[in-house]
């Protein structure tokens, strides 16, 4: 499926989501409460069949934290970026997609560790890299006077 067709299909299927052509790939921003259903849909829909979660990461913005999913379909070889914003930064929560793509379980642990997003229904959410005395370093307001030297 080409990018245009993909955008068309996604727009018609999800009228309230924001679908646009990004710099390389189609991007869709999904509301956080509809994320899990949407993800399940794009994996099971045979014309989309996004079965390979390439990358999952988070970006800290001033008012929310965005989780970005890079998805590819091994059958159709099309690529898409899904974004979901948390409601706020302080109690950032999002539904897990670990039940849809098992690899997400580990990426979500990493996101929780570094950005502090808690994933609902996650089977085993733990910090991978840092211990509990740390904050969440990839947040923009993270300051560490001991370990970080700023020029």
């Amino acid at each position: 499926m080409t990018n245009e067709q993909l955008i068309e299909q996604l727009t018609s299927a999800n009228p309230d989501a924001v679908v646009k052509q990004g710099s390389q790939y189609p991007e869709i921003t999904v509301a956080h409460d509809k994320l899990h259903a949407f993800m399940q849909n794009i994996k099971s829909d045979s014309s989309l069949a996004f079965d390979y979660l390439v990358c999952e990461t988070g970006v800290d913005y001033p008012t929310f934290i965005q989780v970005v999913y890079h998805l590819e379909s091994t059958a159709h070889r099309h690529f898409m970026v899904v974004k979901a914003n948390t409601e706020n930064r302080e109690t950032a929560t999002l539904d897990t997609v670990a039940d849809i793509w098992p690899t997400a379980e580990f990426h979500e642990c990493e996101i929780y560790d570094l950005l502090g997003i808690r994933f609902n229904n996650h089977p085993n959410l733990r910090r991978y890299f840092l211990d509990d005395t740390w904050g969440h370093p990839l947040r923009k307001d993270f300051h560490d006077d001991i370990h970080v030297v700023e020029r």
Partner: protein
Amino acid sequence: MAEFSEKYIVTDEIKADEYLVNIGPQHPSTHGVLRLLTRLEGEIVHNVEPHIGYIHSGIEKMTEALSYPQIVHLTDRMDYLSAHMNNEAVCLCVENALQVEVPERVKYIRTIFDELQRLASHQLWWCASGMDLGALTAFFYGLRDREDILDIFEETCGARLTLNYSVPGGVMFDIHPNFQKSVKAFITKFRKKLPEYDKLLTDNIIFQNRTKGVGVLSKEDAIAFGVTGPTGRASGFSCDVRKHHPYSAYPYIKFDEKMGTDGDSFMRWKVRMDEMWESMNIIEQLIDNIPEGDFAVKMKGVIKLPEGEFYQRVESARGEFGVYIVSDGKKNPYRVKFRSPGFSNLFTINHIAKGWKIADLVAIMATFDLVIPDIDR
């Protein structure tokens, strides 16, 4: 909603016959500081839980304070065995964002370096996993041959491991006048050495017994767990970025994506061995046809990416390496994420090592070709 806990708790009760063994953080077969919390019954593995982060270096955070050429040199330090692929990924991402077309010569040089780096990485993997399986002599043969590639690297770019050869817009130096000669000499030499690798281990009955049928990863699981690279391809998951999303000079050349079917340790081994032959074929196609021209385009002194998000995938020696850059138009990126192949690959261990023995766990880890800084970043 599941009960959430800040601290990690061993969720399953340890049964009467079971005991916990920490394999790592300091252990000969983890190739770095990886800790596998293993639940054993006798020698049988019941559960493996990887604990990572012992050499987390915070590269993603550091990049937020650095300019784009400076980020490139940090990527050397993640997967140090595919340093050039990592460099290239960042450079391609920056070039794509700036819509810069690099000269053909750069594309050829980068691709040759990619394949040399892949060869060097697979050689080290070969010898290190031979060592894991107890064949200590293999370790020295692999390092001996890898030395030739490192010499080629050193001749052209002055460094052996942390190359920092690609820069946004091209490569740092032009290739050394001897480069083509020494690469060809190496290929001729290594074509004679590689059959010895097979004689020493691949065909060996002990080795085959150790790896055949051990740690089978099905194709479905490979896709679901995002297992890429030779490890994923051994399971039949066609995931070669060079083939599906060609970059640099890969569109110009003919090569096969080496695939396996069984997904066991032996197949992972075989796919990597085949990839070494294929890498030599790729280099031979390119080495005589490097076009004349500049080795870099002139970039601005301060590289500023346009606002937006950019994702670039390359095939590193271990699998799909991705760079995701969020730019807010300044000279530093807003956020950089490195999608490292080792991270996704590592966590399948629990899935496939269950029910095998400790010795098999070592064999599985060996054929997964883990590089810990790649996982920890």
